[in-house]
């Protein structure tokens, strides 16, 4: 695959998918810049990326901590070609029983903060007149289970922000894609599948979860020059989960 650009900011860089993706990126000649929100995340990245010394970097970026945006961007400088956004806080609660303070802070962290990051990264990309941003959403954005209302709302709102960015700046070489994976055998998805067993997988027409490798390779494709025609849209990668009843 060919890529126009080299440096990729990966928000939420300490998740399993981001680590897997980074390995593929390095193999493809890209330079991942992984963000972490705490010491645990920084150590996780260090441990899991130890076979790629000097082929990646990592910076602190905490959802809701606005100073951390400027601090990160000062360190990365204007050399940003791509961004992949896995960042997402966890807040599972029935709507009617949710803590009121948490409602406000969750949306501030997962929508407003993300938008500020996007605004600043987009302005950096505008200087080069090119950039590609991929938001990792979820099939739960449109098919949430009870308790996932806040997660779904934040994902859908963020999808809308990414879509509009692609609409507004597509003519300036900056494009966006949202990927909506279904059940993934990784992170929260793996835990969910382990808890709910075969009943979950049987709902998926391909009768299995999506693998980390498949998601990573799909993201790499959407960053590549071959996918330049995709902009301001949502791509489903759920094994057919949301196609039927």
């Amino acid at each position: 695959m060919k890529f126009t650009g080299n440096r990729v900011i990966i928000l939420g860089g300490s998740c399993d998918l981001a680590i897997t993706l980074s390995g593929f990126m390095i193999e493809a000649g890209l330079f991942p810049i992984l963000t972490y929100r705490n010491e645990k995340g920084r150590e996780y990245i260090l441990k899991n990326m130890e076979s790629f010394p000097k082929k990646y970097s990592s910076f602190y970026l905490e959802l809701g901590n606005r100073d951390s945006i400027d601090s990160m961007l000062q360190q990365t400088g204007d050399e940003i070609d791509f961004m992949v956004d896995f960042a997402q806080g966890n807040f599972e609660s029935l709507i009617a029983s949710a803590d009121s303070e948490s409602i406000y802070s969750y949306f501030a962290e997962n929508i407003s903060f993300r938008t500020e990051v996007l605004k600043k990264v987009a302005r950096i990309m505008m200087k080069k007149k090119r950039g590609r941003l991929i938001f990792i959403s979820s099939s739960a954005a449109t098919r949430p289970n009870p308790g996932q209302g806040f997660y779904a709302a934040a994902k859908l709102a963020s999808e809308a922000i990414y879509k509009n960015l692609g609409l507004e700046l597509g003519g300036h070489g900056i494009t966006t894609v949202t990927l909506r994976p279904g059940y993934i055998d990784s992170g929260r998805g793996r835990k969910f599948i382990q808890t709910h067993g075969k009943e979950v997988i049987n709902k998926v027409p391909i009768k299995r979860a999506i693998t980390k490798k498949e998601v990573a390779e799909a993201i790499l494709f959407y960053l590549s020059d071959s996918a330049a025609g995709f902009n301001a849209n949502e791509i489903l990668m759920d094994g057919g989960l949301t196609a039927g009843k």
Partner: protein
Amino acid sequence: MDILENITEILAEILDIEKHNITPETYLIRELGAESIDLLELAVAINSRFNIDVNDDEIFLRKLRQYATEAKQQNNAVLQYLVEKLSFLSSKRLEEIIADLEGGLTLKVKDLISYIEWKKS
């Protein structure tokens, strides 16, 4: 190259117009037809060329009418209120702007220059 020359070069490129059409007295929106996406591009170019943080609302006087309304609601003198809110513009220029409000969007090239000088000082 001074600030005006830099701004002229940036505007000519973004709006695809001849440099001689641009003077300090030129209205960006009223005369040159700059649209919101052009202003965004202009803000990014100014940030890059002059190495200053640009607040789009400030440099493009986006809150001008809101400030004028606030001043009237609070029974304040509009000029004095604008001097406080848009401190990068001179009183003389703000008087011009107040007199010109009925004519439409008042942003001129010289306002960009004032903003850049203020940010660099």
